């Protein structure tokens, strides 16, 4: 494992009585792409601003490349930042914008020009030197902002919701580009986002946050397939939840049904939630096999490549969402009002503490 580049130790931040961040600790390895993911107000932007030095923590420590930078002035830190608004200087040309940080670092004019040219080529905007920000599209402005942040070759790149002001198509395209660029340059990157798709596709490591605490840290696959909490499970991807009680070491009871579970359960626990992703529910023609229940299709919703059906299982109040492909749908005759048998495979179940 590569060495830790940035380390946050027990960060707290309070605004009056509001506890924006509670005991946040995190290690970021060199060259890693980390996403802070969470709903608005979860503290992800506060954390980014503390790393940048734009705000101060109430308690805790920030270490970058082995130095304590908790209270270091913004200017004495080594990072580049891209804001949601891009914050391009409207009265300066693209070239002057990108070279803005180089001018005060005594870089000679020819070197500056060469660096700007190189960066513009990197972000795919060669030849735009003399344009002004207002003459560029949103996606192009974002690239210029990225080039400006990278111009001084910072050790750390901070991205604050960089794609949220763009339309869907441009966003998907830039997502890939930023990721490739980051891999090529090997710059340690932290991106703040509320878009789980963005986080899943771009990050090496996702930090899921809620109410000022870290809910889970892990790779995109881990966060998706092994969510540590009901919040992570519901925020990243779709998830069905059922109220249940522990009935045995490996069995649960929900309504009239017994549900088999793969892992060991704590019999002392009551009031737990069983969860399953819509794509993990399987349909069958008859009621064979474990965890298979009879029910009815209440409603179907066409999503393009697949269909999302809403199921009512006999003896369970909460409706379940299940995704099926178009082919499966035709063979199993899944239509609103039709009876179905469906299985909740025991190796795909998640169990979380507490009622929802």
């Amino acid at each position, binding site marked *: 494992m590569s060495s830790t580049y940035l380390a946050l*130790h027990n960060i707290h931040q309070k605004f009056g009585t509001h506890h924006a961040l509670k005991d946040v600790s995190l290690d970021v390895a060199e060259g890693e792409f980390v996403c802070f993911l969470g709903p608005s107000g979860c503290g992800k932007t506060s954390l980014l601003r503390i790393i940048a030095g734009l705000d101060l923590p109430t308690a805790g420590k920030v270490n970058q490349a082995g130095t304590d930078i908790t*209270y270091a002035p913004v200017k004495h830190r080594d990072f580049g*930042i891209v*804001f949601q608004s891009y914050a391009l200087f409207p009265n*300066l040309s693209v070239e002057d914008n990108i070279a803005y940080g180089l001018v*005060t670092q005594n870089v000679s004019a020819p070197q500056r020009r060469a660096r700007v040219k190189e960066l513009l080529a990197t972000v795919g905007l060669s030849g735009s030197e003399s344009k002004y920000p*207002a003459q560029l599209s949103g996606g192009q402005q974002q690239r210029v902002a990225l080039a400006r942040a990278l111009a*001084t070759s910072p050790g750390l790149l901070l991205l604050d919701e960089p794609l949220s002001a763009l339309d869907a198509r441009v966003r998907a395209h830039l997502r890939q580009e930023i990721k490739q660029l980051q891999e090529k340059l090997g710059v340690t990157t932290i991106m703040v986002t509320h878009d789980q798709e963005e986080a899943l596709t771009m990050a090496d490591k996702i930090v899921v946050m809620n109410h000022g605490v870290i809910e889970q840290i892990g790779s995109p696959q881990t966060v998706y397939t092994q969510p540590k909490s009901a919040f992570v499970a519901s925020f990243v991807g779709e998830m069905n939840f059922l109220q249940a009680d522990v009935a045995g070491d490996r069995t649960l009871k929900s309504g009239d049904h017994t549900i088999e579970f793969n892992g060991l359960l704590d019999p002392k626990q009551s009031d737990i939630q069983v969860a399953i992703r819509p794509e993990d529910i399987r349909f069958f023609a008859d009621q064979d096999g474990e965890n298979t229940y009879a029910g009815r299709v209440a409603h179907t919703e066409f999503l393009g490549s697949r269909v999302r059906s809403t199921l009512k299982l006999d003896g369970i109040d909460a409706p379940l969402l299940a995704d099926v492909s178009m082919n499966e749908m035709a063979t199993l005759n899944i239509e609103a009002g039709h009876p179905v048998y469906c299985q909740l495979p025991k190796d795909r179940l998640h169990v979380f503490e507490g009622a929802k």
Partner: protein
Amino acid sequence: MDATSTVSRTNSNKRPFFGQKSLDEWLLGSVLVVGIIALFICIVLPIYSLLSKSVQNNAGEFVGLDNFLTFITTPSLSSSIGNSVSIALICTFIVTSLAFMAAYGLTRTKIPLKGTFRLVMALPILAPSLLPAISLVYLFGNQGIMKELLMGESIYGPIGIIIGSCFWTFPHALMIMVTALSNTDARLYESADVLGASPARTFFTVTLPGAKYGIISVAFVVFTLVITDFGVPKVIGGQFNVLATDIYKQVIGQQNFEMGAAVSVILLLPAILTFITDRWLQRRQSALLTSKAVPWVAPKRPIVDRFFLVTMIILSAIVIGIIAMAVYASLVTFWPYNLALSLNNYQFDLMDGGGWESYWNSIEMACYTAVIGTGFIFFQSYLVEKLGGYKVIKWFFHLFAILPLAVPGLVLGLAYIFFFNAPNNPLNGIYGTMAILVVCTISHFYTVCHLTGTTALKQIDPEFESVSASLKVPQIYTFWRVSLPVCLPAVLDIASYLFVNAMTTVSAVVFLYSYNTTLASVAVLNMDDAGDIAPAAAMAVMIMMTCMVAKIIHWFVGDVLLKSSQRWRVR
């Protein structure tokens, strides 16, 4: 995960006492501190001296409310309260109605020549308030050309004060009203139309409520402007006493400073009331219009359009007529006996009041005010808006910067005498110099400039400073390279506002000029006082022309030069 978790994660590190600011942020912070000290000395302390003087007697002993009691129990003095209030109320009603009609014509009809009408109706702002008063003397005075229209009534008194005050406050009212009526939402009109409302009903249920805050704001502004103005009643008021002339008489005529201070405090009340109402209204107003509003485009309404066209022509004719009368009077050799045109009245050096020197003094004062004032105000408003930290200082800075709006010029001038002329004041030396005139004028007009600056700065991205800090660029460099160029139009607005007001103001400086620093606007007053009305008119015309030139330069630099040299402004 890895070995770092074994490192002790205690929070033993303390925040360094110097915070996390870098050197240049500390330097900018100290400039802000210097700025707030300057405001404290130039605005807060003088007003405090005035307030304390109003509860002292001649010997400087505390006498409580005795001065106020004397004022109220002296019939000749207390009657001026009634006079002032009734004059101000009448003007408020007239100006608010006319400004509403004019603004409606400019924003909600299809009449031609809107730009020209607007330009003409804004003209009075370029002249001192003395100009309409002098003009009225020529039109309706004892030897006036239209004296018969008054049917035996005298122009010297309430009638003159009302007409003159309406004339010079009209453009101020019009500006606010046009803004209020420009904010339309076509969807409301469409809804009213679809629901079958008559034009009259639409007017009373949509148009009028939409402009409600603007109308209230105009009413308060006009009331305050009229009640605190001193130029018009001084020239044309005759024996009709108002509060503003009382202060002048008490201080200049009778050297009764304590009574002057007491009257000033009374005069502060309506201004403070207006100020508070205005703040309150602005908070309400902002919530009124959503960003989704679709501007309303006036349909063709022949009768309505014709009515407003006639109204605009009449209003413009009155404005032009009053100004033209002053210009004509200044050119007539000897009214009304020798109507031959000459420039005799422009030979100011032959009259009392300071001569041509006072004109050049005014230009000098206005230039200093514009240059120093704009530099100081804009840079300070930049620091207030864009420097990190210093929350308490910024809060007080804002408070001090807003304060002058509630202080009438006459009151501020008197406050300056009390504060700067005190023998124990180390700044005593600037009393009677050009410096005190410049300082007083900047302070007097501080608020509008400060708000212009902060509004412009609020519109630029708040992350510019963060970005430049992350690029290790000093903040002052970003100010010079980005914030200042982007805000140049606002900077020009501030400079031209300060210049024009410095040229035309009488109220504050009338107490502060000395033999060496006579000013053009004060010369108008003094020549009129001495009976040299034609030269007074001539000087007023000179002031107006100078302001026109300043406005033309402003337009040229702002609209022609900036747009051609700053390619990025054009999309």
